[in-house]
């Protein structure tokens, strides 16, 4: 306990030293702007900013990326409230009550609710991370190759089942991602898989160029294809959060915080599902259900708290299992690897203080976000009005720089273009992107652990199913897969006794 407290104090001292606060301010601002602009997502923001952090020390780099992540998820609510367009997919649930409030002349109050809900949500999730991540990390030390294989499989299955509404397409996207990760030299024999004699392909497809393509280029194409965004609330009342809005809905805040953090900790689900689930749970529990969708303060509070609590939640499995809880967390994990950090069970041994540094970074980002929530209203309104015809080419230029910068290969720019085109087509065909990203990120983990497990057992597959933790994870994976079969899920639901 004392060790944990010492580490926590050390984490804050470390994060608040030097010019870190300056970095926190600019990075959170960038995050909020990226999140607020429709067409730019948190994932894209973290991916593009990863490029900028190459020259930084890993602690400053992580602070910058955590701030961008936290800021972007919050920033999405601005356009959700003012434009009725979610800045990021995570803010879609906020449009339901945020925009009606703005139409009633309460845009400022809605933004105040969003600020307080988001602030409390991130704080709640961060508290859970600080309390449970270290002990869960120690528990995860018991995981061997067999268990890690199932952790990766569970991530793909659960993300495929829940992230897009069509589990079949989710699974296909997940396996496509896993396949992409196999391209290039494998580790055992340095054999170049699917390279066809091409030296660039033998080097593999870089994670960052693929992610920048899938989230950056595909977003630019989607944005330019769609209809232009119009209409913005011009009059804004006070944005200072009201204490009564918080105290009256404390149960909603706690429930949404817990739900958001839990969903964040599930591999690959992410902020949008956290927001929708929190919103739905608040609606079920509310005495004023009829107000939901017509400007309910409770509804907006639930969505904002849920999505923001999801951010620290999504970082928990990154730190403890090397499995990301959301798409932006996947990019954050990739950035950790690029910076030489080794997320996963060994982190509790090699750098236990890093978990507390991340806690401190999240708290700092949350505080800075609060400050911007109070002062950054009118400038953001102006930024929201930048026409996409002028914004998107600049985003495309940044994507190109982001894809090239890590290894300085022109080939990576072609990878970005290809990934962007494929990502765009898959989106148009309603394939969810979260399992694809998770597949790309988890591919190496799954590949190594499956082969290592087989070698250790001399080709015997039974340890994958008989070791206690393996068996539990395998059961969870199967349950998640079976639950996604429509007929079977309905059958199970029908068997439940009806209340009363």
């Amino acid at each position, binding site marked *: 306990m004392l060790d944990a407290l010492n580490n926590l104090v050390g984490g804050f001292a470390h994060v608040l030293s030097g010019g870190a606060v300056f970095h926190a301010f600019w990075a959170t601002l960038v995050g909020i702007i990226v999140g607020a602009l429709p067409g730019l997502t948190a994932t894209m923001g973290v991916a593009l900013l990863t490029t900028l952090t190459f020259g930084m020390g890993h602690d400053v780099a992580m602070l910058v990326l955590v701030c961008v992540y936290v800021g972007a998820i919050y920033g999405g609510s601005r356009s959700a409230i003012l434009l009725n367009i979610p800045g990021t997919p995570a803010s879609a649930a906020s449009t339901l009550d945020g925009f009606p409030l703005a139409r009633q002349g309460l845009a400022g109050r809605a933004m105040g609710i969003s600020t307080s809900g988001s602030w409390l949500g991130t704080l709640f999730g961060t508290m859970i991370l600080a309390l449970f991540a270290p002990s869960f990390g120690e528990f995860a030390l018991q995981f061997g190759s067999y268990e890690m294989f199932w952790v990766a499989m569970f991530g793909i299955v659960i993300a495929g089942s829940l992230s897009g509404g069509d589990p079949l397409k989710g699974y296909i996207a997940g396996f496509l991602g*896993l396949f992409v990760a196999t391209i290039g030299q494998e580790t055992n024999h340095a054999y170049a898989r699917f390279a066809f004699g091409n030296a660039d392909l033998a080097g593999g497809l870089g994670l960052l160029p693929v992610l920048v393509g899938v989230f950056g280029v595909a977003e630019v194409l989607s944005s330019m294809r769609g209809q232009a965004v119009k209409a913005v609330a011009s009059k804004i009342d006070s944005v200072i959060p009201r204490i009564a809005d918080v105290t009256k809905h404390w149960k909603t805040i706690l429930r949404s915080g817990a739900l958001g953090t839990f969903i964040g900790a599930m591999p690959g689900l992410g902020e949008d599902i956290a927001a929708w689930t929190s919103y739905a749970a608040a609606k079920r529990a509310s005495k004023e259900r009829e107000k939901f969708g017509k400007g309910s303060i409770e509804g907006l509070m639930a969505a904002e708290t849920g999505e923001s609590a999801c951010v620290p939640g999504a970082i928990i499995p990154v730190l403890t299992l090397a499995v990301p809880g959301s798409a932006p967390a996947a990019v954050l994990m990739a950035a950790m690897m690029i910076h030489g950090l080794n997320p996963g069970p060994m982190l509790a041994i090699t750098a236990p203080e890093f978990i507390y540094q991340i806690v401190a970074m999240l708290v700092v980002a949350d505080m800075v976000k609060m400050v911007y929530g109070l002062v950054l209203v009118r400038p953001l309104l102006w930024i929201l009005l930048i026409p996409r015809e002028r914004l*998107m080419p600049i985003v495309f230029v940044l994507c190109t720089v982001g894809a090239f910068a890590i290894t300085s290969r022109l080939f990576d720019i072609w990878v970005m273009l290809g990934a962007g085109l494929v990502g765009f087509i898959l989106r148009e065909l309603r394939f969810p992107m979260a399992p694809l990203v998770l597949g790309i990120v988890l591919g190496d983990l799954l590949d190594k652990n499956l082969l290592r497990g087989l*070698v250790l057992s001399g080709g015997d597959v039974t340890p994958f199913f008989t070791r206690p933790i393996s068996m539990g994870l395998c059961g969870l994976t199967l349950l998640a897969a079976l639950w996604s079969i429509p007929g079977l899920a309905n059958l199970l639901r029908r068997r439940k006794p009806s209340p009363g």
Partner: protein
Amino acid sequence: MSEVEAESPFDGEKAPASPRADLITAAVLFTLGVAIVQQAIAMPRFVEQSGTGLTAPGIVPGFYGVMIALLSLGLGLRAVGRGGWAVQGVATAGTGDGRRLAIAALLGVLYSGVLVGRVPFWAASALFVFAFTTVFEWDQAPERRLRRIAEAATIGLATGITVMLVFENLFLLRLP
């Protein structure tokens, strides 16, 4: 999303792909899955090195290929069940302007694939931003066209120079 009561206000955007589109997608993905399996089988097994052949490079991608083929078979059968075989017409699912999409994609490929690496990066970026903005704003209010072109040129130059200064001088990164 099945447990969620609230409806997304963007249901129109999230309308499911047509059965026809799913059927074509399934066919393409099934072919890909089979091709992956075929390539995986053709990979060397390195039995002499490992003794067991359990570290053969083709095992894992082969497994993925089988899964992609099986799942896309499922997608195809589901599409047929939903009338994908009978329905004739457009295979795409999304809404929007295809012309705008084609122009954006073409300009993007010309910039990233042709200009970058051949022309100084700042100049390529300035040219791309200028062309992109001008083309997409061309049809708006013709009486203000000249002013918009001048603005596009300014934005292009500012982008090219700022990106070069920020990335190369401030963050010490190499640009293409």
